[in-house]
């Protein structure tokens, strides 16, 4: 018997609550013991469940899990468990009946309880469960076996899938509506009206416009929105025969921006005025980028600075320098931590979703307008869920709360 098992059982004896119970022989053998591949995971673990027996479910009653590579052994002790939690919603859902089952997850195969170098389970493994009374095993479960495998589908995230599908249908509906009626109402966004004013000012002063796309890559939704706005801004710049400079932190963003600006100049009928060198890569180091853009600002003195996209700690360094050179500054970001800095240093700030709305407002394209309308509809739905859910929760109904649980 391993030394710490003796110690463990000895401690239970010292605490003085085992003898009476076991003397009365109130413990029962494990029931309905099963082993299976842990659902909704990437593989690597096997789950064991057995029915909760009130007589056994006490802190002083240890279960012992044994494992073997063959049905008839040899058996190796894996772990001792006491007073188990009986529900695991990530794997088994939120059904009340789950509380009737004890649960244990096994990821490694040990040669003994003290094995410090357990091996991952690589083949079908056999398990049995024992209930001990401190000195002897009172009963064994039947032998069960299982092998793990990765799952293609994580059923615990089904609520997210349903929401995505509903949300997609709502968006598509509003896009078709916007195609039929392109003049769907979108409220005025003050910051955007200022863009035209800023471009006009830059043209009058004969100075360039500085446009930043944020520090994230093309995988970020705010960068996608920023490049979309860049297209509209570049078109206005081309019409006004002004100049736009776009320093980038990401080479892929730079390439996308070059395409976007080139397209904008083509649409404006000024392909000759397009200069690819005005959209350039600086570095992907955050503060080196900030230092370079600051230097650019003080040397070229742009008349307008537009900060769209996602920003981090460099936001204040950029916007403060821009304010110091007297440029009109318009920011648009969904970076909550940096918004306060833009609000304090810029003339106009598009907050959060206004950045996404800006693109639709400027373009009036059915695709974007419909998408914006769909988002508004979803926001209304969320407000409704919020109010109804809180009232239901107050009344003790947890259905809506459970519907939005994520694991």
């Amino acid at each position, binding site marked *: 018997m391993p030394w710490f098992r003796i110690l463990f059982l000895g401690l239970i004896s010292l605490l003085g609550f085992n003898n009476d119970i076991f003397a009365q022989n109130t413990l029962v053998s494990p029931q309905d013991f099963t082993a299976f591949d842990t659902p909704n995971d990437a593989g690597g673990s096997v789950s064991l469940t057995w029915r909760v027996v009130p007589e056994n479910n006490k802190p002083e009653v240890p279960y012992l899990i044994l494992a073997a590579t063959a049905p008839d052994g040899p058996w190796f002790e894996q772990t001792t468990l006491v007073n188990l939690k009986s529900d695991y919603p990530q794997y088994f859902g939120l059904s009340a009946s789950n509380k009737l089952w004890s649960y244990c997850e096994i990821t490694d195969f040990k040669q003994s309880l003290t094995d410090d170098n357990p091996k991952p389970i690589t083949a079908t493994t056999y398990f049995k469960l024992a209930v001990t009374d401190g000195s002897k095993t009172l009963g064994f479960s039947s032998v069960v076996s299982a092998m793990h495998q990765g799952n293609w589908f994580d059923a615990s*995230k089904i*609520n*997210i*899938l349903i*929401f*995505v599908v509903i*949300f997609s249908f709502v968006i598509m509906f509003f896009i078709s509506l916007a195609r039929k009626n392109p003049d769907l*109402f*979108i*409220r005025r*966004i003050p910051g955007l009206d200022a863009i035209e004013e800023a471009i006009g000012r830059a043209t009058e002063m004969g100075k360039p416009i500085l446009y930043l796309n944020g520090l994230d890559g*093309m*995988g*970020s*939704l705010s960068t*996608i929105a920023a490049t979309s706005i860049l297209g509209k801004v570049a078109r206005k710049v081309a019409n006004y025969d002004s100049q736009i400079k776009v320093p980038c932190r990401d080479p*892929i963003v730079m*390439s*996308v921006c070059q395409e976007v600006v080139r397209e904008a100049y083509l649409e404006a009928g000024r392909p000759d005025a397009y200069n690819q060198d005005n959209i350039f890569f600086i*570095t*992907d*180091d955050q*503060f*080196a980028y900030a*230092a*370079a853009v*600051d*230097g650019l600002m*003080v*040397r070229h003195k742009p008349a307008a600075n537009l900060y769209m996209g996602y920003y981090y700690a460099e936001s*204040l360094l950029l916007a403060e320098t821009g304010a110091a050179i007297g440029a009109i500054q318009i920011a648009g970001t969904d970076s*909550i*931590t940096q*918004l*306060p*800095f833009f*609000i304090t240093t810029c003339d106009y700030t598009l907050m*959060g979703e*206004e950045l996404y*709305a800006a693109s*639709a*407002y400027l373009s009036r394209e059915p695709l974007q307008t419909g998408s*914006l*309308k769909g988002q*508004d509809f979803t*926001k209304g739905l969320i*407000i409704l869920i*919020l*109010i109804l*859910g*809180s*009232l*239901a*929760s*107050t009344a*003790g109904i947890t259905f809506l*709360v459970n519907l*939005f*649980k*994520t694991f």
Partner: protein
Amino acid sequence: MDNTVLLGVWLAVGLTLFMYSFLYKDNVFFRFGEHVYLGISIGYIIVRVIFNNFINDLYKPLVEDRDYILIIPALMGLALYTRFFTRIAWVSRVIFAFIVGFGAGLGIPRTIAGGIFKQLEGVLMPLAAIKDGFFFNADGNFTLVNINSLIIIVGITSVLVYFFFSVEHKGVVKSVSRVGIYFVMIAFGASFGYTVMGRMSLLIGRCYDLIEFSSPKYYYASIVLLIMLILVFIIYEVVIKKGEVLKTNE
């Protein structure tokens, strides 16, 4: 003390002061610091990409482990360079479309899970204790178990109304959205103060270093370099610039 350590200290102090000199105005020292910083960062990125991405992620698994599936992303990466050849530049657009689509596909479920579901899960809390059909506690007094829940619901609802773009902000909507913008500004104020405190601690850390490096152990690096910097500025402003002004006037 090891000479390399001493050189490192003097470089660190010098570059720190060069960058801080921007607080005075754009100058040759700041430009030097800026370009050194930029050059080092670019050099570092190139080395990092070659060793981490090209050698460790592509070359070794492909050649040593014969993981041929990596040929596909490698070809996709190479296809980005087709933009330099006008006739086949469209190939790079296909790859860009893949990158943007992949980013959106990865981002949308994550945003819904973290930005909507997690938030709702935390907000859908009981507003009050109900006993015998009324909001009373055990002592028979009116109670709101979780006043925070009520504030949060009012806050979220009004902020969401502010971000409604389909309706004009007039009448009731205007009033509710005004409440929403107050909530937003309170949150921003708190965030602003918190971040400024963080920045102050960064500044203090830098100042601690400068003070430490001004000791005799480091041959008064901070003091010597600061005096030199100030002297150069004075000479430039008083002597050279004044001379230039006089020359222009003549």
